[in-house]
């Protein structure tokens, strides 16, 4: 009988204990500094103890694990690349990638939400005034409050710059009208970073406003029923004559789209990192299953086809990881091609990691299809990484444009 649900926490624990041996060619601590290894250790420990034992329950019961995320925030995971003077941890993009990759082995969906939260706090930290940073960032870094990123609308997904939510200036407020779709955390979170139209059509007419829950005119749609990412609620966010103080605008009028895109560069690395964690966990699950399950009188691991499959999975994983970390360094260093590299990394890692997780599921045979086994949750949770924060089609557009126009 192959292993049961407890496999996910056990696999996470193996990662946390850093057991070498068979898995050392995919060891995620290779090439890291001493400090980075420490960050990774904490994140893996946290994932193994505080997340992996609950990931199935959070998925099944659609629980938004507020207390667990707050515990993570106490360790500094609420504002990883936010400046320390407002409560952040002040780490680099690479450190961040390593941390999210590690946390994702415990629960990919929750980690992905945490990465979105981190992205929003960074946007306020980077583009907000001193007053705005001090007003919003500390309680977000501690996760006393949670944030959501609001760009997509029913009528504008990939064509994000065509968004229609309007923000009309009236005295010292902006009055918002319109709606956002597919907002992660929507309805349960406290702070909404909203891209809306203050000017003419196109990207230059878009500004970025911070809208707080409880503002009159702010309401939410029904909670969406999703294939994965069930530990975070997804709702439409609706603005009906919602008045927001001008003092809640981040940056200048017309700067909103740029702020949104810069946020997404980091967001793409983070999402890619979440895919890496899920894929690593899935490789370990597959490896364990192949050694335990027997058919035709021998362990599945004696079968060359499956050996080759595992080898391919491991190779894809390492290749994807290297590209993601390369892009993270480029973004940290402010290289000119950073945005393109982030797109490449997101495209490659999310695609490859989905193949890895899916192949791991196949290797489990029928058991892979049961919700008692963790591998199916990794597959379901990372499937959406190929779609959000810019579809992988849009990632190709970005790379092609840079090659043909650059």
């Amino acid at each position, binding site marked *: 009988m192959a292993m049961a649900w407890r496999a996910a926490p056990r696999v996470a624990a193996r990662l946390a204990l850093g057991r070498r041996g068979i898995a050392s060619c995919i060891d995620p601590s290779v090439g890291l500094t001493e400090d980075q290894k*420490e960050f990774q250790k904490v994140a893996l420990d946290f994932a193994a103890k505080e997340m992996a034992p609950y990931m199935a329950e959070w998925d099944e019961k659609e629980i938004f694990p507020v207390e667990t995320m707050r515990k993570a925030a106490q*360790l500094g995971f609420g504002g990883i690349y936010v400046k320390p003077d407002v409560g952040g941890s002040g780490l680099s993009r690479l450190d961040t990638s390593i941390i999210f990759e590690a946390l994702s082995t415990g629960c990919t969906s929750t980690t992905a939400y945490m990465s979105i939260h981190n992205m929003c706090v960074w946007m306020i930290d980077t583009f907000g005034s001193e007053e705005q940073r001090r007003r919003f960032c500390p309680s977000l870094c501690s996760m006393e409050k949670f944030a959501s990123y609001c760009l997509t609308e029913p009528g504008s997904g990939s064509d994000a710059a065509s968004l229609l939510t309007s923000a009309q200036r009236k005295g010292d407020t902006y009055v918002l009208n319109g709606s956002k779709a597919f907002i992660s955390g929507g309805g349960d979170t406290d702070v909404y970073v909203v891209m809306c139209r203050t000017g003419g059509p196109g990207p230059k007419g878009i500004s970025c406003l911070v809208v707080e829950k409880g503002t009159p005119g702010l309401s939410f749609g029904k909670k969406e029923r999703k294939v994965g990412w069930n530990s975070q609620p997804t709702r439409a966010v609706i603005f009906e004559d919602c008045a927001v103080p001008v003092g809640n605008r981040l940056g200048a009028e017309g700067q909103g789209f740029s702020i949104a895109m810069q946020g997404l560069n980091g967001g793409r690395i983070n999402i890619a990192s979440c895919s890496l964690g899920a894929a690593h966990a899935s490789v370990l699950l597959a490896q364990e299953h192949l050694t335990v399950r027997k058919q035709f009188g021998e362990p599945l691991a004696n079968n060359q086809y499956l050996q080759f499959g595992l080898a391919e999975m491991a190779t894809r994983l390492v290749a994807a990881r290297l590209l993601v970390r390369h892009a993270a360094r480029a973004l940290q260093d402010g290289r000119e091609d950073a945005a393109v590299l982030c797109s490449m990394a997101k495209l490659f890692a999310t695609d490859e990691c989905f193949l890895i997780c899916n192949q791991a599921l196949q290797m489990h045979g029928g058991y892979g299809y049961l919700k008692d086994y963790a591998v199916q949750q990794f597959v379901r949770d990372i499937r959406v990484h190929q779609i959000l924060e810019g579809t992988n089609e849009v990632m190709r557009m970005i790379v092609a444009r840079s090659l043909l126009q650059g």
Partner: protein
Amino acid sequence: PQETLRTALAVGADRAVLAEVGEGVALGPLEVATALAGLVGKIQPQLVLLGKQAIDDDCNQTGQLLAAMLDWPQGTFASRVQLEGGSVRVEREVDAGLETLRLRLPAVLTADLRLNEPRYATLPNIMKAKKKPLEVIPAADLGVPAGPPRLRVLQVQEPPARAGGEKVENVPALVEKLRSCGRI
């Protein structure tokens, strides 16, 4: 070993000292206790907390040896520790159950599994750990004798495989069997 100390600093310790031993030198509990006694002389702590036994040799001796060398009270297998002014109240896990002692400080305690759950390092503390002092002292400076280890492991073997049991029909047969084996 420096990595282990850095982790301890990251979890909240204020400073670290590494008693450095040469490559390939085998340390037994007596040597470790001697080194610790030397450190106690330098640092003058009120409390020494050790693990109850190491995972490699399972000796369960170092804490007790150290207490004897220093002539300090010892509270071993501690599962609860409470400081009370100039003394420490220790609950010990012993075979008969739990024993509570009050020891006058300074004292040596060894930790049982149930003492607590290690806390997580926080990201800011991991970064601060780099700046915390880590001193390296050669073990010889602490009085650890050079030379070959005094203890040598001659052999390690598994216990003999258990022979199969035997089923008996009824109680009289059981009693008969036990008598014939000399058990009763």
